[in-house]
């Protein structure tokens, strides 16, 4: 099986709103795939269909070799979803959140799994604090850590960096790259072009219910007029300044 995700002719409407009008794409195993699109383009709808939270009106979707409609339990067994909003339990501590997910995935040693992930995500000092006291970046890290419990072959990250400060965003990027290096397939949605450029092996653009472009960054660049050679003085962006002041670059 070469592809983790295979989607053909996907249609989905919410009452009169026709969100997906025949979406086709494939995601190669072990790659990072970025789905780009503006707000309301239907990125989350695709994620929800692929993670069995929503049923398509027509078309086929296969995840890790299993059809999302006829084999939802097998699909769920092989994926992890990190939704658009950090789905962590605020009342529980970071550690308790991870132990809970490890128990629900029926792992042998939930406490050890939690401990390892807390260390890996730099949350060990905050492990026994209620997650409601975490910063946005920490919540997102915990959220992603919860999705890594059980080492799913495919992980969905729905706008993982929306609302994060630049520092936290770079941390999330690092995590995503590490995931792919370890062989996990990552399906990422984003509205930030730079994010797709930084991370993705393949980029697809969803516009008005269809995938209008799909390819590697190099392929996408070829589709458009060649780059003009101009000599300009490179001014640091505000982001460069911010990151160098706080000592992260």
């Amino acid at each position, binding site marked *: 099986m070469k592809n983790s995700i295979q989607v053909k002719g996907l249609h989905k409407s919410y009452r009169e709103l026709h969100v997906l009008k025949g979406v086709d794409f494939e995601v190669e195993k072990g790659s990072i795939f970025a789905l780009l699109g503006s707000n309301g383009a239907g990125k989350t709808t695709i994620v929800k269909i692929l993670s*069995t939270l929503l049923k398509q009106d027509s078309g086929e979707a296969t995840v890790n070799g299993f059809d999302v409609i006829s084999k939802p339990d097998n699909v*769920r067994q092989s994926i*992890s979803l990190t939704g658009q*909003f*950090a789905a*962590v339990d605020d009342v529980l501590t970071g550690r308790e959140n991870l132990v*809970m997910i490890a128990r*629900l*995935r029926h792992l042998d040693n939930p406490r050890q799994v939690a401990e390892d992930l807390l260390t890996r995500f730099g949350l060990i000092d905050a492990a026994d604090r209620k997650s409601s006291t975490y910063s946005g970046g920490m919540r997102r890290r915990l959220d992603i850590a919860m999705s890594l419990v059980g080492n799913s072959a495919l992980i969905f990250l729905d706008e993982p960096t929306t609302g994060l400060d630049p520092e936290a965003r770079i941390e999330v990027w690092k995590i995503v790259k590490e995931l792919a290096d370890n062989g996990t397939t990552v399906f990422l949605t984003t509205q930030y072009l730079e994010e797709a450029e930084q991370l993705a092996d393949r980029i697809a653009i969803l516009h008005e219910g269809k995938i209008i472009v799909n390819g590697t960054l190099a392929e996408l660049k070829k589709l458009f007029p060649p780059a003009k050679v101009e000599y300009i003085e490179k001014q640091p962006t505000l982001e460069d300044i911010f990151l160098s002041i706080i000592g992260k670059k």
Partner: protein
Amino acid sequence: METIKNYYFRDMGVMLGRSMRHVSRSMDTIITVTIMPIALMLLFVYVLGGAIQSGTDKYVNYLLPGILLMAIANSIGYVSFRLFTDIQRGIFERFHSMPIARSAALWGHVLTSLVSNIISITVIIIVALIMGFRSPAGVLSWLAVGGILALFTLTLTWIAAIAGLSAKSVDGASAIAYPIHFLPLISSAFVPTKTMPAGVRAFAENQPVTSIVETIRALLFNQPVGNTIWVALAWCIAIMIVAYFFAMRVYKRRK
């Protein structure tokens, strides 16, 4: 899939443990479901009790069944609230994308409501015993009382589930609790209905809480339960089935 069925009760146990932490870490919940009913019991017995003609020697004996129902009624707004927050925060989506039975998340909340009420009711009964409550009832009668209280809890929990699952805001989710808070007040829970004006009395005598209170009282004091127990059971079971049906419909439609 086979494995999901095998783990059903274990998964539900994890869900129960999680939301029990929500209960035990919320001072507000503990105050409303345990301390408030105890405070009301103290108030009614030691402040108002002397002036209330309940027809029994010890007013606490008369009052306890009503206080227990009130404690349960107080708890159900929190059921809606907890369900609503789970949906709004995306916790349910996370659970539903995992290989666990779809209904485990919802049943976790229902069980939490049952278990937390068992705990608060036990505490209230202990306080009542200290205040002089005594019952000649045997084990079987107590078991029957426990069964009726559990049924009442489940009935209200499923009503709360509809609100929690379909609400658009936190306020909407908890609003369901208010009319339910009033039911024990307009019943024979605190005073006999015979002194009430005709209209109020007709309502009080024919609403579910009165039949439940009367049944528990009869069971606790070895009096004949007569038809009341059947009326009480019919109310609870009928409302519970309807509420369960609607709650499940809303739950499935959320997908």
